[in-house]
């Protein structure tokens, strides 16, 4: 898999494929960071189709190839900041979500996009336990969804997206905490109601709908001021967490006038 280089990529050094594929939060395969690498091999990703519906002109079942055709792929090297206080740099391959939404035709009343992960407990053994409310749901405001930084990824380095990273197709929203970037998507719905995302429903005091990376708004139980870069070594230290994960120039205007301590 190859993707055209993009102006929107960071020039920071990406983490190795080994690091990116062996340190994952994907509770469908267990809560341990190594669980997804161990168990995600069981997931069948072909055939796969994504249902797109709600307030769109052309609802239907779309194949991964339809949504992210080879000739449209771009490489996007993005920082990823987890809500737990660690970060990585990841070279994704994918297409903008905007290009997909253009294809299906968003109707004028639509304000939000809701995403859903596959529910298949036979292959996703974490779903046999009530760790979260399954299936995993996430959502974006329409202007966030159509922002040029927001992509649907189908590859990592020059490989097809590994299962533990959310194969065959996942969301990547680099200025938000990682849990917003929902994996293994089977449904995308355009709606005029703000979706209730999984973590927000579980612990509304700790996880908000927006989940923008914000060093000034701490998680109630830990600080978000700094982060550990995975792969920095035993004494690699911590680095300052940047507002909007360093993408403020591009996205801050989406939140003009909002109180981000309230809409966290």
């Amino acid at each position: 898999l190859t993707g055209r280089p993009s102006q929107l990529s960071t020039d920071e050094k990406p983490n190795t494929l080994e690091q990116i594929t062996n340190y994952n939060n994907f509770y469908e395969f267990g809560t341990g960071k190594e669980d997804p690498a161990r168990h995600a091999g069981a997931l069948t990703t072909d055939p796969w189709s994504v249902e797109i519906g709600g307030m769109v002109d052309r609802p239907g079942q779309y194949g991964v190839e339809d949504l992210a055709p080879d000739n449209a792929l771009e490489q996007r090297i993005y920082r990823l900041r987890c809500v737990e206080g660690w970060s990585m740099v990841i070279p994704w391959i994918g297409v903008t979500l905007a290009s997909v939404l253009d294809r299906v035709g968003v109707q004028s009343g639509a304000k939000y996009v809701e995403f859903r992960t596959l529910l298949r407990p036979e292959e996703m053994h974490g779903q046999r336990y009530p760790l979260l409310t399954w299936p995993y749901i996430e959502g974006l405001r329409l202007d966030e969804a159509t922002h040029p930084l927001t992509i649907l990824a189908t590859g990592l380095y020059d490989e097809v997206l590994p299962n533990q990273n959310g194969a065959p197709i996942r969301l990547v929203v680099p200025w938000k905490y990682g849990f917003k970037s929902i994996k293994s998507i089977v449904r995308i719905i355009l709606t005029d109601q703000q979706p209730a995302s999984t973590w927000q429903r579980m612990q509304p005091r700790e996880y908000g709908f927006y989940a923008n990376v914000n060093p000034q708004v701490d998680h109630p139980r830990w600080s978000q001021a700094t982060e550990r870069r995975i792969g920095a070594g035993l004494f690699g230290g911590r680095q300052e967490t940047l507002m909007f994960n360093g993408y403020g120039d591009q996205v801050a205007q989406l939140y003009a006038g909002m109180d981000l301590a309230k809409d966290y």
Partner: protein
Amino acid sequence: MAAWLNRWLRRIPVWLVWLLGLIPLALLIADTLTGGLGVEPVRDIEHRLGRTALYFLVASLAVTPLLRLTRVNLIRYRRALGLLCFTYAVLHLLAWVSMDMAFLWAQMSRDLIKRPYLFFGMAGFAILLALAVTSNNRAIRYMGMGWRRLHQLIYVAAPLVVLHWIWALKTFPVIPAIWMGVILGLLLVRLATRRPVMKKANERIV
């Protein structure tokens, strides 16, 4: 059976308990040096040290209930078990300060007050520290009944360190909850078998 076991146990020197107790540390160092820790070694070092400290804490807590229920006497090794727990707790704290927090003192001190999981952990550590510095024979003689009361604080420290573990996680965790159950169970055994069994044990063993 218990008498036979106790005769056997008496032959085990305390230094052997120390030696065995440092095996988890040796394994951790070996894993660190050989790259056996995975892609985020700092977290693994921190967590393994913390868990090992808890195991020794529970082992030291189990000594008296074991004596009361089965008359197997491990009292002679309890100080070593407690100090092993403290050793791993110190290393766990040092790993947090140096590797995880990279000596960001301002953030650490702010977090200590604001974050329940750090507060629980630090409160537990403060108790362990007080018990460790008074674990020598001189302190025991000098403090008399006060020593006993001070060291009963271990029943406060134990649940605190498990709360420290639970509060640091995102979802409700099964394994720490099991350890909390074990600790409360050991406390209950102690309360339920309070004086009479103790007397009997004293007569027969000590």
